[in-house]
């Protein structure tokens, strides 16, 4: 497997698509087995969180309910997707031990499984929210929707790459998951998920941190096309694209180096 060129590994991942699609489907089924509302939970949870936070923020701070609640909802579901991909990604290889010992297959398949099942919930939330907004505000800007689509692809690749990196590290260093949890918590406050980025303009260094944070760019790329009907700023697109390229090549290099030996470590 290690002698393969990059292209043939991607081809192998594509050839095995029925396998990882079936795995992701199984994950969704497993999660809502014996549940009454089933997959609707993926809407109920962020909706309730949105109501609570928006309820508090609109009464304490000077923000308008009708702009803040959708802003919050998009932020929360996108953050949820990222967290789930990374934290469950940490266990992707250990959990896949049973498949890895059957035949040599590209390991990136297993973090992909995790990202896909997290992605389904994200997409359900997004579609429901977009449908609601369109119902109130009428037609959408097609160019902006196209930008939204590319944002989803970029964030998907980023999540997949980060999950691959965490899964690999976690096989060697079992503390990876704890480190990832703490880092995500720090990152959560350094990213405008539950606050408006404009509210930080007076905040000095924090403002600098938040505007350099690539996840701020990703959130802008998801929110702006829907909430304002505009294309995201060029700077946000550049940051998001560059960050995706960096983590994707990191993950690729790491897997290239360890993929062959990794089954011996499990």
């Amino acid at each position: 497997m290690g002698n393969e060129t990059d292209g043939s590994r991607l081809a192998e991942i594509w050839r095995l698509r029925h396998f990882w699609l079936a795995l992701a489907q199984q994950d969704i089924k497993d999660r809502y087995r014996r549940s009454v509302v089933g997959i609707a939970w993926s809407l109920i949870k962020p909706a309730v969180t949105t109501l609570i936070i928006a309820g508090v923020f609109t009464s304490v701070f000077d923000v308008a309910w009708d702009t803040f609640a959708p802003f919050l909802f998009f932020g929360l579901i996108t953050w949820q997707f990222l967290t789930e991909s990374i934290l469950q990604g940490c266990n992707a290889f250990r959990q896949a031990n049973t498949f890895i010992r059957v035949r040599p297959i590209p390991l990136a398949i297993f973090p992909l499984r995790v990202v896909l099942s997290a992605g389904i919930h994200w997409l359900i939330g997004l579609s429901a929210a977009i449908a609601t907004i369109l119902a109130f505000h009428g037609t959408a800007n097609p160019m902006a929707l196209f930008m939204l689509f590319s944002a989803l692809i970029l964030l998907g690749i980023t999540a997949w790459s980060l999950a691959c990196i965490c899964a690999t590290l976690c096989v060697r260093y079992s503390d990876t998951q704890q480190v990832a949890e703490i880092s995500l918590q720090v990152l959560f406050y350094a990213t405008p998920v539950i606050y408006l980025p404009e509210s930080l303009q007076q905040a000095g260094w924090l403002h600098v941190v938040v505007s350099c944070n690539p996840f701020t760019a990703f959130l802008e790329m998801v929110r702006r096309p829907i909430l304002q009907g505009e294309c995201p700023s060029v700077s946000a697109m550049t940051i998001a694209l560059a960050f995706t390229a960096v983590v994707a090549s990191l993950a690729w290099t790491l897997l290239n180096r360890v993929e062959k030996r990794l089954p011996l470590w499990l």
Partner: protein
Amino acid sequence: MPCVRLQAIDLMFPLKAQRRTTFKDLIVRGLFRAPAAWPETVRALDGVTLDVVDGECVGLIGRNGAGKSTLLRAIAGIYPISGGQRQVVGSICSLFDIAAGFEWNATGWENIRLRAYLQGETPTSLAGKLDRIAEFTGLGDLLDMPLRSFSTGRIMLLSFAIAVACEPEVLLIDEFLSTGDLQFREKAIAEIVAMQRRDRVVLIAGHDLAFLGQFCTRMLWLDQGRVVLDGPTERVLSDYRQAMQAAKPELAGSPLAA
């Protein structure tokens, strides 16, 4: 033509990785440079040479820890070899451990699909084989039940049926058929013999010498990662039995025997 060619392969198994390193270990070792009290690796295979051509069924025998499973995994390409050359021509299918490649909460049918897709089957290529798999297992409506309600023997039956249906050119079996009932063993032998006739390659590791002797055309006796003897079934089996008999007094003195 399917074949397995191993030229003096070595396999070093890392022990460090088995004992998970924590960040604390890294820092402490980095600061104080404590001498490693743990060997870095163990030599699991030591210069194994093997040439299996189509139509052969090779039995791998040897005591526990002799390297039978490691050799099979190296042939399958799951474990990387550290030295020598490995060449396998033909599609490989493995039956290594009973639970491998299954999801416990999924039904029998879902698991058939999952395992077959893992082997590279597609929904179209699998469609014609589903009935054959179900028939081989004889499980009927039980296939609608989740796998965790299956007995070990039935799970084994299921994985064997899927493996055979995927029509591999090289079939690798590890210590797998030993828990099957008589009827299943007969079915399995019939399938393996049929594969030999179709010029496929089968390698099977096990401890049940009488069972292996029924269909293996050749035997490979391993000890401590090295080949002790490779030859016709009858000869290797009788030498192996003699060696095990000779080793008996040594076992009788074990602390557990008292």
